[in-house]
């Protein structure tokens, strides 16, 4: 629609100044212009409106204002305010309905506009705050940007400095390297120079040497000689050989041969040594392998129940290795394959052994923690049983010791005087009583012995008497015989005398036997017996101790046995009746006898003698 043009009405000019101002200042769209005007017009609603309302239409210009309004409204699209004209000339009547409608429409429009205005205002506020916020952000970001820019510049500066340093250092390094290189070059060049100089000097020296050598050789100094009294034989005693042209070459070849022989010998020797060493080492390895296999195999037996993979492989490995062993022993050469086999098998065995040992270690550790392993449980049970047994034994021993200690204590301390006196000899009581018994026995025996002795002596006396009588008888008998005989022979008078002396002596001896007990040489059996009897009588008065008594009894018994022996053969002669009975008893008495034997024999003989004596006439 273009600019809001003032309605050419001078009356409205003052009021439309505002509008003019607005229009002149800003070139806005009509809608905005219109809204502005609405705004400014809506705000000061109270006063100006009234004035404005009154200013527009007065009573004079009603028709004009109506026509104006109608124009405006129709331009805005509202229906006309006039009624439909019947003719052109007549004045149009105001259509009230249309007016009211227009007013309503205008009010509605007004409200809409107000709403829109509100909305727009709020939006405006929002936008304003957004704007503020954005401006703040913008300001902050600007600051940040500034600071970061400054930082960056700083870092760049540092970077630059470091790079400078780096470059400097590189430069230095290069310089040093160059210097080193230079020095090395110098050294190398110097070395070459020195070498060259050395060589030159050496050549010179060699030349001098040559010259000198020539001079020396040429001079053929008489002085240069060897003066020997006589040439010495060679060290090995051989003679030197002629040196001809042929032999020169042969010498050379021979030397070569010898040299090579020596070398070959040395190599062969060394190779032998190495082979020996190899063989020994191989042996050792094989032994090791065998031992490892044997180590592993008995242990395989037990855990065969637990189907482990490793044991299965071990068994199979053992079998394999056994086969391998035999194979290797067959091929006891140092060929590659055998060597490899050996080393591989040993490595395998070692690995198995290692794994086995590790397993055992694990088992041990497991047992420490849990203790469910069969083998170890069994052993532990055994172990516990044994410990229990040992403990019981210990207890028993201790108890025994205690009781013994108690007993000892009782013995040692708890004793009264009576009991002590009684107990003092309690250990010896038995022995004492035994001794007493024995004493009594001994005394009885002694008595018996005494009795027997007495009887024996009486018997001996009687015997002696009887012997005397017998002797006398015999002597007389012999006398008679000799007298009968010697009527023929006087020469035997000496014999008679002897005999008479013999018989007389015997008589004398028998007479003197009691008065003077003298030891005489036994002139025969009878004297011996008489002497024995005298001995007996001599021994009897002595008071013997038990032992002496026994001894003398023994000797007496012996003697008596002897005497009885001596007697009885004579006695048995006349007494042949009791001889048979006595002989077995004599044999008893004559046997190698102890005291008792003799004693018993004695007693028996005594009784026998008693008996026999009774028998004797």
């Amino acid at each position, binding site marked *: 629609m273009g600019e809001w043009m003032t309605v050419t009405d001078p009356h409205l000019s003052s009021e439309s100044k505002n509008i003019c101002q607005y229009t002149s200042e800003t070139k806005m769209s009509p809608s905005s212009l219109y809204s502005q005007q609405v705004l400014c017009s809506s705000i000061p609603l109270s006063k100006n409106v009234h004035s404005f309302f009154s200013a527009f239409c007065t009573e004079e210009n009603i028709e004009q204002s109506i026509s104006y309004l109608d124009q405006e409204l129709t331009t805005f699209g509202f229906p006309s305010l006039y009624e439909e004209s019947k003719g052109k000339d007549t004045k149009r009547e105001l259509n009230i309905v249309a007016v009211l409608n227009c007013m309503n429409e205008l009010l509605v429009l007004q409200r809409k506009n107000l709403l829109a205005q509100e909305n727009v205002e709020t939006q405006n506020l929002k936008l304003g705050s957004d704007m503020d916020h954005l401006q703040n952000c913008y300001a902050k970001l600007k600051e940040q940007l500034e600071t970061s820019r400054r930082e960056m510049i700083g870092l760049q500066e540092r970077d630059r400095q470091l790079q400078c340093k780096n470059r400097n250092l590189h430069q230095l390094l290069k310089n040093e390297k160059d210097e080193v290189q230079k020095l090395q070059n110098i050294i190398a060049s110097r070395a070459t120079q020195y070498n060259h100089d050395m060589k030159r000097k050496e050549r010179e020296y060699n030349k001098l040497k040559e010259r000198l050598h020539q001079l020396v050789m040429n001079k053929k100094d008489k*002085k240069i*000689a*060897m003066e*020997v*009294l006589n040439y010495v034989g060679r060290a090995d005693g051989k003679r030197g050989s002629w040196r001809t042209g042929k032999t020169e070459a042969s*010498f050379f070849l021979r030397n070569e041969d010898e*040299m090579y022989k020596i070398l070959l010998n040395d190599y062969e020797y060394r190779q032998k040594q190495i082979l020996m060493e190899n063989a020994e080492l191989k042996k050792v390895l094989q032994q090791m392998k065998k031992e490892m296999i044997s180590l592993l195999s008995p242990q395989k037996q037990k855990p065969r129940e637990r189907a482990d993979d490793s044991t299965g492989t071990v068994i199979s490995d053992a079998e394999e290795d056994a086969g391998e062993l035999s194979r290797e022993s067959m091929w006891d050469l140092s060929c590659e394959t055998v060597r490899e086999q050996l080393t591989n098998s040993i490595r395998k065995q070692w690995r198995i052994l290692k794994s086995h040992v590790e397993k055992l270690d694990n088992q041990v550790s497991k047992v420490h923690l849990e203790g469910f392993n069969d083998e170890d449980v069994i052993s532990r049970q055994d172990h516990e049983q044994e410990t229990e047994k040992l403990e019981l034994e210990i207890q028993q021993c201790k108890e025994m010791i205690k009781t013994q200690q108690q007993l000892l204590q009782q013995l040692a301390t708890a004793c009264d005087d009576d009991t002590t006196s009684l107990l003092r000899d309690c250990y010896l009581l038995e022995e004492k009583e035994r001794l007493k018994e024995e004493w009594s026995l001994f005394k009885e025996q002694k008595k018996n012995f005494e009795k027997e002795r007495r009887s024996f002596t009486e018997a001996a006396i009687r015997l002696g008497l009887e012997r005397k009588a017998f002797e006398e008888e015999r002597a007389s008998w012999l006398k008679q015989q000799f007298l009968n005989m010697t009527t023929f022979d006087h020469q035997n008078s000496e014999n008679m005398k002897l005999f008479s002396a013999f018989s007389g002596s015997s008589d004398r001896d028998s007479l003197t036997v009691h008065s003077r007990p003298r030891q005489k040489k036994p002139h025969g059996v009878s004297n011996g017996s008489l002497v024995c009897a005298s001995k007996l009588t001599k021994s009897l008065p002595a008071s013997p101790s038990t032992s002496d008594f026994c001894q003398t009894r023994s000797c007496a018994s012996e003697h008596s046995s002897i005497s009885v022996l001596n007697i009885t053969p004579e006695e048995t002669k006349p007494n042949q009746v009791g001889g048979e009975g006595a002989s077995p008893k004599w044999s008893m008495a004559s046997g190698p006898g102890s005291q008792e034997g003799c004693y018993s024999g004695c007693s028996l003989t005594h009784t026998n003698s008693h008996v026999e004596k009774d028998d004797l006439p």
Partner: protein
Amino acid sequence: MNFSEVFKLSSLLCKFSPDGKYLASCVQYRLVVRDVNTLQVLQLYTCLDQIQHAEWSADSRFILCAMYKRGLVQVWSLEQPEWHCRIDEGSAGLVASCWSPDGRHILNTTEFHLRITVWSLCTKSVSYIKYPKACQQGISFTRDGRYLALAERRDCKDHVSIFVCSDWQLLRHFDTETQDLAGIEWAPNGCVLAVWDTCLEYKVLLYSLDGRLLSAYCAYEWSLGVKSVAWSPSSQFLAVGSYDGKVRILNHVTWKMITEFGHPATVTNPKIVVYKEAEKNPRLALGRLAFPPPRAAAGAASSTESKYEIASVPVSLQTLKPVADRANPKVGIGALAFSPDNYFLATRNEPGTCRIFPPQTASRMPSGSGTYRS
């Protein structure tokens, strides 16, 4: 230890005969031969000049006396005292003289090492060997006396010639890869020749009897190298002592180092027995060896008594820092010796310590007993 009376000796020339029966000692121009057991003088020979070198022949029947100043060598016989032999080098001069292993040839090195003259005592022949090298150990005989290895220098290169001692024929001649050969030595089995370079370069070369290079060994570069070399009696090991104070042992199969022994300045291992030489009397003159002087061969000037006492571990050994700007510094392994039964290795470390290493412990830490002089 009991010592006999002191006998006069000059120039430390005192040698036992190879068969051990006689002892030869030199006093000025006289050669005295004594019986070993009784020390009675058996023979007395008079030479024409002061003796600089005396040597027994291998069969103990002859002694040579070399007089370098006059260029004379006189040979004396033990069995026939009236036998005499005189070798006059005349204008050629004499620098060194030695016996050949068969005891019937004398090798004289003339002045400036111009040549080696081989004089024969059995025949009238004379052999000449040209241009031997003037080095520390340029001549080496094999133990069985068959071959002679000689270091030579021709055309500014080192060569080695091998001669057959029976007829002095040249067997092999080859050049070595050394800068400046310092020494050669045969292995006791006579099949390998060890050649080592000057101390400026560590290089040990091993040649076979027929001249082939078997192996080369170099432990390190740039520092001073080999100082001493020794073969083990079984020819299985070669001990190389160097200026860095270490002994390296090579084995005869691969000619590579199997072990090395260090000589640290402090001894801390309690298994090591340390003998310390304590002197009773102050020395009048310093000897060079760390061992007590052998019986009747004491240096003329030294009359000290010393004994060995056991020092308790840890022991710190005295070390001398050698002067850096002098040649031949007194550091490193100066001498090596294997025991005859192949069991021990004795080393002399400058200054003044001797260590003994058993090869059994080569795989473990090297241990050994050591003696040192404070």
